[in-house]
């Protein structure tokens, strides 16, 4: 099942609680139809990973996630060959092997016999599939999320490129496996390091920025169904004011959501400077930033916070 058109993509994502923008919906739809991976970039916490999850949910597909980190290699991303299991099997089956070659007279004959059983020794049974292989060999179409690709090593990127171009994997012991269904691939990046041009060229690029007023409001309304609209508007406005300050780490959507949740839990339904100061540690994750916000709100009100 795929999205039928842009509007359909937007609606389906909305149904699973993801408020998209026109651009996001378009790119997601196009990626689905053209079967190209999407490279999602943007500041931390704007919902890059969330998008992949939402797409999986909307399409009712399984989400397979590969978290990248420095030192990630093939055996952790693609597959692992389980030697120990293979050895164990061989040992346990020793007697059976004896049976098979019992009536052979010469060594070559015995070898031929065993060769006939080769498939049993080198079977998929001993392959431990990791996310990439899982995504490719899955019976049903899946959504593959390769998270924080920029944290992986350049070599791994090159390796990934190979897989993303023809969706097939060669396992020396068994042979080549091609994808039955091309997975819906999302790659996310925080621009920790420049990605290679080739990888970028393969992908559709989607830059998710801090949401605009309406979208952020929409997100709050969806996440907190009973929320008072005026209250939500005030929250969004306050967060936007803070975001405009020169902070090291700006509060993003997930922080807005967390903040709203804490405000509701604290039963504070009015956004006053004192309230903001009191709950600042939900919004700002570093002391220097918190200090800046405090300074901003302790200034005379006309230049600073406006309740209008």
């Amino acid at each position, binding site marked *: 099942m795929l999205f039928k058109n842009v509007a359909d993509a937007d609606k389906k994502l909305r149904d699973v609680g993801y408020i998209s923008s026109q651009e996001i919906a378009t790119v997601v739809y196009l990626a689905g139809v053209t079967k190209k991976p999407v490279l999602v970039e943007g500041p931390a916490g704007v919902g890059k990973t969330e998008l992949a999850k939402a797409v999986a949910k909307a399409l009712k597909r399984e989400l397979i996630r590969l978290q990248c980190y*420095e030192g990630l290699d093939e055996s952790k991303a693609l597959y692992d060959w389980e030697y120990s299991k293979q*050895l164990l099997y061989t040992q346990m089956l020793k007697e059976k092997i004896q049976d098979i070659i019992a009536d052979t007279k010469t060594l070559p004959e015995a070898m031929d016999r065993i060769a006939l059983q080769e498939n049993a020794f080198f079977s998929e049974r001993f392959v431990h599939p990791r996310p990439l292989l899982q995504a490719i060999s899955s019976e049903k179409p899946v959504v593959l999320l390769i998270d924080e690709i920029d944290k992986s090593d350049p070599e791994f990127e090159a390796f990934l490129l190979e897989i993303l171009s023809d969706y097939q994997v060669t396992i020396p012991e068994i042979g080549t496996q091609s994808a039955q269904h091309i997975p819906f691939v999302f790659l996310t990046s925080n*621009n920790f390091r420049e990605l290679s041009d080739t990888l970028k*060229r393969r992908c559709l690029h989607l830059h998710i920025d801090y949401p605009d007023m309406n979208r952020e409001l929409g997100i709050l309304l969806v996440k907190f169904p009973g929320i008072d609209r005026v209250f939500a508007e005030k929250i969004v406005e306050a967060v936007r004011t803070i975001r405009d300050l020169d902070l090291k780490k700006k509060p993003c959507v997930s922080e807005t959501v967390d903040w709203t949740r804490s405000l509701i839990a604290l039963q504070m339904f009015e956004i006053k400077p004192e309230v903001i100061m009191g709950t600042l540690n939900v919004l700002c994750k570093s002391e220097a930033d918190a200090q800046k916000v405090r300074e901003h709100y302790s200034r005379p009100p006309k230049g600073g916070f406006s309740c209008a």
Partner: protein
Amino acid sequence: MIQALLQFAALCRAGGLRISTSEVLDAVRCLELIDLAPEEPFRAALRANFVKEMKDEELFDRIFDLYFHALQIGADDMRARALSSRLVDLVETFGREAQDSESALAFFDFLAGNRAAFLQELQKILELEADMPELPFSDILSPLQQKILRKRMDKLLPESALEGADIERRSLDDLLLERLGLAGHMQAELPPGLNLPGPDAEQAPGRPRDLGELPFSQLSRQEAREVHLAIERLARQLRDLVARQYRRKRSGVVDIKKTLRRAACYQGIPLELYFRRRQKRKSKVVALCDVSYSVWTAVPFMLNILYSVQDCLSRVRSFVFIARVTDVSETMKDHEIMDAIDRIMTRFKLESPQYAVYGGEEERDHVDADLEISDYGAAFSQFKEEFISVLDKKTTLIILGDGRTNFLDPGVQFLETMRDHCRRVIWLNPEPERLWGVGDSAIETYRPFCDDVRPCRNLNELRAFITGLVL
């Protein structure tokens, strides 16, 4: 449609985006799939295919607006259709007069509603501009504009007298003016797009001055910023390189313990070998920078690069001195790199008017009555007394200064003690080599106590030095 898209892609390329043929093909495929009537999906589809980096998005949006909005005239313009025959006549008349100039012809075409020809011309010009920054297109335009306006009035007056259609004349007037305005607007819009720093702006052809070779003291504010950008890129490259080297180097001695443990899975046969990670020796760095008036210009760059590649070094301490040594490591630790440098510079009142790269751009009166003069002897002696403990056998001491002692005691013996306490001393001199040892320069006196004395006048020299230090 395809024609328009190709043209748009060409315009984007001319503007500095890198768009490959396959990306254009993908874009066409994508456009076939969506409803083209609303604009946002159309734009999003193009953007997803053409722009692959955040920093290019702004440029793309500008070109998009220019191509699909500013230039979108003709088709739906009823006025234009009504007047088209008149317009074509008009343009032909002018065309005959200006046959010598191709771009002028295209310009007339544009007036007549033919956007494509003009764009092609514009694109040609843009491509030319990469090599020849001084192509006089904008010069063509304004006299042309004047000429046209003048002639048009002359021509139209008798014509309107003939037909008596006053309204028609006025609307023709408006239309032409509008289009002229557009063309002028376009001229003004596009070139700034070209000036956006591309990924390898450093090597871009036609750059008036080569940043790498320019002495630090001669950089303009804009250039200094670019050097800092270049340093950032260099630092990233180095970090990448070091990470890779680290991985390659880890095949060291066999780690018996781990290998045996793993071998237990295989009936005690060591099928998989584990190697002890060989830690690459990261050097500790202590930087001692002269911030007296003669040499301070190099210091911000030095500090920036040292702290940018901090991850590749095990520890960085930094000190600045004129006559008294000040430990600035804390400042560097507590603030963002550029911010910290700014603070240090302010503390020493180091802002020459044309060079206020850091922080506010207000000019400061830096001619202090009791301006400290650099005293290497005193500084070294104080460093030896107070900070000798930061030096150890793994530390590289980097001294950045011109060695101009103002004829005071150079204090060589202190440098010697410092040298004995650390692994090596590298002296970076921001002065041109031919001035070394001239006048009050004591660099030759210091030389025997340094492991290396090297010039550090510009980005290239700094780059070479840092690369050597880190790798």
